[in-house]
């Protein structure tokens, strides 16, 4: 069952790479949170109940509800345009995402290590690289934040593979990461949005001496 959810998780990455509205990105991030909730619920069977509840609450409350609501609030508040406006066409994004997934699968297939859960490894690594790719290929700061959230999800999946052995540390780190990044960048975006009415980093290239 965990494998099924992880396959759906990879499919959300494909969907994210061809989505062209900001709200779709937010919805996919929320969906990823829900999927991570189920993965955590099934995978982390050996840790104590209180810790499990904490992790599950973290996935549902932060990843699935708080962050998407906050992001959509920022979208509305700052009058950010509804299209994602990537540098590359979505078609190229899709091919690159597929190439990333295939490459990570080939990579993990060449690693001979019995301790490694390859399914988690593949999903985590491809999510990480896809998130990096989103950051590199999208134009707006808010999309960079979303790419960062995708990377966080990848780290969470990777930590889940070893979650039964060392539970507390990894999860607290992830939670703190999410909280800090969204809070800081949210406030940051609010100010930027109020002052410039536009958060398009592409316009910074127009700065020059006359």
């Amino acid at each position, binding site marked *: 069952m965990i*494998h099924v959810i992880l396959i759906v998780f990879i499919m959300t990455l494909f969907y994210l790479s061809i989505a062209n509205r900001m709200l779709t990105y937010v919805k996919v991030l929320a969906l990823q949170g829900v999927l991570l909730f189920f993965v955590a619920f099934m995978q982390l069977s050996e840790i104590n109940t209180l810790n499990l509840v904490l992790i599950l609450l973290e996935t549902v409350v932060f990843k699935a509800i708080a962050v998407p609501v906050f992001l959509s609030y920022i979208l509305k508040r700052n009058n950010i345009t509804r299209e994602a406006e990537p540098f590359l066409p979505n078609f190229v994004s899709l091919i690159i995402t597929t190439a990333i997934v295939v490459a990570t699968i080939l990579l993990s297939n060449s690693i001979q290590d019995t301790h490694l859960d390859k399914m988690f490894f593949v999903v985590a690594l491809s999510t990480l690289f896809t998130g990096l790719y989103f950051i590199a290929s999208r134009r707006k700061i808010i999309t960079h934040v979303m790419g960062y959230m995708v990377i966080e999800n990848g780290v969470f999946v990777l930590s889940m593979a070893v979650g039964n052995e060392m539970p507390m540390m990894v999860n607290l780190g992830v939670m703190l990461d999410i909280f800090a990044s969204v809070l800081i960048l949210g406030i940051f975006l609010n100010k930027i949005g109020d002052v410039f009415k536009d958060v398009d980093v592409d316009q910074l290239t127009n700065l020059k001496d006359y």
Partner: protein
Amino acid sequence: MLSLVLTVIAALFFTGIVIRTKSLASGRKGPGIMQPIKDVIRLFKKGAVYSKTSSFVFQIAPTIYLASIVMAMLVVPFGQSKGLLSFSCDFIFFAYVLALGKFFSIISAMDTGSSFEGMGASREALYSMFAEPAFFILMGSFALLTGYTSFQEIFAALHIGSYISYALAVLATFVLIMVAMIENSRMPIDDPKTHLELTMVHEVMILDNSGFDLGLILTGGYLKFAIYGALIFNLFIGIIDYQYAIPLFFIVQFLMAVIVGLIESFMARFRMNHNAQFIVALTSVSLLIFFGALLMLGKFN
């Protein structure tokens, strides 16, 4: 033999059910279930008109198109009974005999010399080209999973048991339905009801065909839908007795017709430049099926 008869019977009703679903969803009563068949019969009674600029290619193309679809229909199995033809690697035959028919419909569209038809032909070729890897990776991973290479053996050996195989079956159904929609030029890719030549894909290719030829092409379209419905049915059924399999076949075809009708009622057509990426996404999904099959075989992990 059985699959041939059943597919033809299903094809009689399929398009009628799609049209009825669409009209019910938009609050109309709609034409009768047999109306598409009546249209085809009316067309068969007519002669055909050929433009002076077109050559013999334009005249033979509809016949070859229908013949290729009938050939493809011969290899489709029904549960444990084979299709009329069954040999190893017949899924490759299936895909390429359909491609042959498509090739002839494309060059006949080019033959008319109309600029609109050339545009439609170019789009159709592009979309078919993108849909091909999705189909082959899907069938190839099933061949890998079962160890057989013909349709009948693959479908007979396919067991749905563990969770991951359920996921693979759902993904495969999704890919097959979408490939069927692309091959038939239906809604998310192409709108069969559009009235503007610039936005047509398949309809613009057959603008110059009339009378008997148009009837052949329409018949081919009806059969194609039923063929893909039969493939999806085979994916799920495996080996069960005929008295259950035959009603189930019609139920699956009916459900697929209703699903197609609902998709066409409630979805807008994609923008032309979004189609290509949507079709390539199908290939990505097929790749996931391939790696899922590797996972089930234990080749990986």
